[in-house]
C-alpha cells in the first residue's frame, strides 16, 4: 500500500519537475510581495501574552511537574508484544503487581499486542534494578516477545539529568557568545531572552501533555533552540543590514520592514520543516513520537512566533537605536568626507 503511495508521489514529482523546467507553473506567492504588517505595534499584545504564557508554563512545571522518563528517574522499562496477538493487560497487571515491585505501570503502546511496562526504581541501588527486571522476565516468561528492555540505575539517571541540564545551559551560553561576537550585545541578549522563552513554553507543553521527559526530550529542546535561533538570526541579520543602510529610519519602522521582508522566507521554511516533522510524526513510529511532537510544538508554534513577535521587537527595549544621539554628527562627518577627498 505505502509503496503505491510512494510511487504515485514519485510520478507527481517527475511531472512537476518537467512542468517546472518548462516554466509552465504559475508562481506561488504565500506571502504577497507588498506585505506591510505592523508587527512591532503588536508587541503591546504579544509581550503580555508571552509573559502570561511563561508564568503559566512555570506554574505548570512546579504544580504538574514533568513526566520524567527512566533516563532521569531510574527504573525499568519493558516494551513487550504478546505472542497471542492481543495482550491481556489486566492479567499482566495482576501478575506484575504480585511481584511486590512497588509502582508498576502498564500501557497500550501502538498495536493491541504491544504493552509498555514501567517499573519504578527499586530501593537498594543498582543490583536491585537488575533483580526487578529478572523478576518481570520470569513472571511474563515466554508468552511475550521482549522488544525493548531498558534498566537505568540510580546513579546513571542522576548523571544523565545533570548532563542534560548542563548541556542545555552550555548550548545557550555558546550561542550567546557567538551572537555577541557576530552582532552587538543587545542582539545576543534579545536572542537569549527569546531562547529562554522558547524553552519555558516547551517545558510547559511537556508538562501539560505529560510526554516522557528523557534524553530525547533534551535533544528536542536543543534542536528547538537551534531552529528558533536560526530564525532569529535571519531576522537580526536583516535588521543589522537595515541599520547600516537607513540611519534615520525610526526603530519600529525599521524592525517592521526587516520582519516583513523576511516573512516570506520564514513561512516557506516553516512549511518545509513542518512537512518533514509531520512525516516523522505520522510515520516515524512510537519510538520517536514524543520527540517529534515536542519538536512540532517548539519549532513550528513557538519558534516562529518568538523570532517575529519577541526577538525582533524586544530590541527596542534593549537600546538598539537608529538615531543614537550622536547620529546626526556621524551623518555630517560622512557627508564631509567626499569634500575632504575632493580637496586633495
Amino acid at each position, binding site marked *: 500500500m505505502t509503496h503505491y503511495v510512494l510511487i504515485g508521489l514519485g510520478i507527481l514529482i517527475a511531472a512537476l519537475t518537467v512542468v*517546472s523546467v518548462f*516554466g509552465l507553473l504559475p*508562481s506561488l506567492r504565500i506571502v504577497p*510581495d507588498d506585505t506591510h504588517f505592523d508587527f512591532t505595534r503588536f508587541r503591546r499584545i504579544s509581550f503580555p501574552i508571552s509573559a502570561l504564557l511563561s508564568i503559566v508554563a512555570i506554574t505548570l512545571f512546579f504544580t504538574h511537574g514533568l513526566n520524567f522518563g527512566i533516563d532521569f528517574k531510574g527504573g525499568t522499562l519493558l516494551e513487550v508484544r504478546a505472542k497471542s496477538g492481543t495482550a491481556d493487560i489486566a492479567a499482566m497487571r495482576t501478575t506484575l503487581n504480585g511481584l511486590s515491585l512497588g509502582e508498576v505501570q502498564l500501557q497500550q503502546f501502538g498495536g493491541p499486542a504491544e504493552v509498555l511496562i514501567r517499573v519504578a526504581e527499586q530501593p537498594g541501588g543498582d543490583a536491585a534494578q537488575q533483580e526487578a527486571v529478572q523478576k518481570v522476565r520470569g513472571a511474563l516468561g515466554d508468552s511475550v516477545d521482549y522488544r525493548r528492555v531498558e534498566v537505568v540505575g540510580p546513579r546513571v539517571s542522576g548523571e544523565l539529568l545533570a548532563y542534560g541540564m548542563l548541556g542545555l545551559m552550555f548550548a545557550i551560553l555558546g550561542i550567546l557568545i557567538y551572537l555577541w561576537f557576530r552582532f552587538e550585545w543587545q542582539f545576543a541578549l534579545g536572542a537569549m531572552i527569546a531562547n529562554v522563552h522558547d524553552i519555558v513554553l516547551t517545558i510547559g507543553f511537556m508538562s501539560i501533555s505529560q510526554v516522557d521527559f528523557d534524553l530525547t526530550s533534551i*535533544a528536542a529542546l*536543543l534542536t528547538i533552540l537551534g531552529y528558533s535561533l536560526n530564525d532569529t*538570526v535571519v531576522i537580526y541579520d536583516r535588521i543589522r543590514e537595515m541599520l547600516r543602510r537607513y540611519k534615520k529610519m525610526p526603530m519600529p519602522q525599521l524592525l517592521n520592514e526587516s520582519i516583513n521582508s523576511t516573512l516570506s*522566507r520564514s513561512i516557506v521554511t516553516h512549511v518545509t520543516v513542518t512537512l*518533514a516533522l509531520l512525516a516523522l510524526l505520522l510515520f*516515524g513510529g512510537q519510538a520517536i513520537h514524543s520527540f517529534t511532537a515536542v519538536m512540532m510544538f517548539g519549532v513550528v508554534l513557538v519558534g516562529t512566533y518568538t523570532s517575529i513577535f519577541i526577538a525582533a521587537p524586544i530590541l527596542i527595549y534593549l537600546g538598539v537605536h537608529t538615531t543614537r544621539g550622536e547620529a546626526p554628527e556621524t551623518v555630517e562627518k560622512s557627508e564631509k568626507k567626499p569634500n575632504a577627498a575632493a580637496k586633495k
Partner: protein
Amino acid sequence: MLYFTRWKALAIILTALVVCLCAVPNFFPEAQVKSWPTWAQRRLVLGLDLQGGSYLLLEVDSNYVKKEKLDQVRDDARRVLREAKIGYTGLNVRNDAVEVRISKDTEQATALSKLRDLSQPLGGLMGSSGQRSLEVTDAGSGLIRLTVSQAAITERIRQTIEQSIQIVERRVNELGTVEPVIQRQGTDRILVQVPGLQDPTHLKELLGKTAKMEFRMVDTSVSPDQAQAGSLPPESELLQSASPPPVPYVVKKQVLVSGAELSDAQPGFDQRTGEPIVSFKFNTTGARKFAQATSENVGQPFAIVLDNKVISAPVIREPITGGQGQISGNFTVQSANDLAILMRAGALPAPLTVIEERTVGPGLGQDSIEKGELAAYVGSILVIVFMLLTYRLFGVFANLAVAVNVAMIFGLLSLLNATLTLPGIAGIVLTVGIAVDSNVLIYERIREELRGGRNAISAIDAGFKRALATILDSNITTFIAAAVLFYIGTGPVRGFAVTLGIGIITTVFTAFTLTRLIVAAWVRWKRPQTVPI
C-alpha cells in the same frame, strides 16, 4: 558571485561526487563489500536501536577496590612490623585508614620510619607528581595512622578497569557474538555493546561473577558444626557450598593454587556417571604446586572455591602430577559450560555491577528501520513537491541540491563509520528541512532584489551575495546546539547529533558551492532577461 573558474567548478563537482560515492558500499551486501579493498569498506553502522542488541554499562565497585587496597596496606604493615620485631596492638582498618598502636614508646620512631618505607612515589608520565601512595602520620600516644591517598586509589581503579576490560572481552567473546564493542567509559566504567543479543541475562550472569578460583585444603581439625559454634581456627574460615542447599565447609585460608595458574578449562561429561564436568589444565608452575600439594595430602579432602563458595571438596586419592584434573559438582550442561568459560577467561580484579542496560529486540529494530525509511521518503517527497510549487524552475535546482546534500550526508556518515540510529534518521529528515531553507533564503532574496528593480543577472548575483552571510550565521547557531548534543548524549541521541551536525556542514557546502554552480550554469546557458522565480 556567479562566475566560477573552470578549475573551481571542477573541484566542487569532484568533491561532491567523491563524498556521494562514499555512500556506495552501503548498497551492497556486507559479504561482498568485505572482498573490496579496505579503503572502500567504510560503511554506516546501524545503531543497536535499529539492528537490535544489548547495551550494558558496568561499573567497578570502587569501595571494593578501596577495601582491597587498605587490606593490602594492613598486611604490609603487619609484615614490616613483624620483620622489625616491633610490638604492636590493634592493627586495623578504621575510617578509610589503617591504624596501629605501637606498644613501646622507644620503638615509635623506628616503627614510623619502617612504615614510611611502605609509601611509594606515584608514577605518572612525568615520574614526579610529588604524590605518594601512603601518608603515614603520628597520631600521638603511640598511634600511627596510614592513610591511602586519593591518587593511589584512583590509580588502582584505573588498573582494575584495564584488567577488567580484558577479562570482560574474553568472556563476551566466548558467547560467539558478532563484533561486540567493549570500551572504557569515564574512570571506573566499562561499556559493552553486543549487537544481535536479545536476552542479556546470560551475559549479565557471566559478567556478574568475579570468578576468583582457588584450590585450598579443607580443615579437618574441626567439624563445620564446631566451627559454627565458635571454635574456628584462626587460619581457617567457614564457607558455604555453591549449589543449594548450602552446606558449610571449614576451609583453610592458605591458597594452594589459584585460578590464575590455569591454562585451559573445558566442559565435558564424566565417563562413568555421564554427569557434566569441567576438566582443567594447570600451567607449569600451577602443575608443580598442585603436584606438591596433592602428594603431601593424600587421603585429605581439598576444596575448589569459586568466589568464596565451595564448588566441590573431593578427597585426594593419589598425587596428581599431570597438572590436569576435573571438577564435578552438581553441574548442568549450561553451568559446566559457564564455569569453563569463567575459568578460561580468568578472574575479575573487582566485582562489576550493571548500572545501565538497554536491549532492543530484532523485531523492534526492523520495525524502526521500516518506519524511519517511510517517514524519510514521505517527508522528502512533501518537501520536494512544495519546493517545486513555490519556486518552479528554481525549485528543481533546490531539489537537485537537496538530493546531493542527502547523498553527501550518507557519504560522510559512511566515511566516519558513524552509527545510524532512529533519531539519526529523524536528524536527516530535519536536515532536508534546513537544506531547503538555505535555498529559500537565497531565492527570497533574489525575489526581493528583483522587486527592488535590479535586472535578472544582477538580482541573482546580489541574492546569493547577501543570503550567504545569513546562511552561515544561522547554521552556526544550530551547529553549536548539535555539538553540545553530541558531547552530552549517548547512543541514539548522539546519533541524532551526528546526522544533524553533518547535515549542517553539507548544507553550508551545497549552498555556497553547488546551488550557486547550478544557477550560474543556467545563467550562462540561458542569458535570462527575467527570472522565473
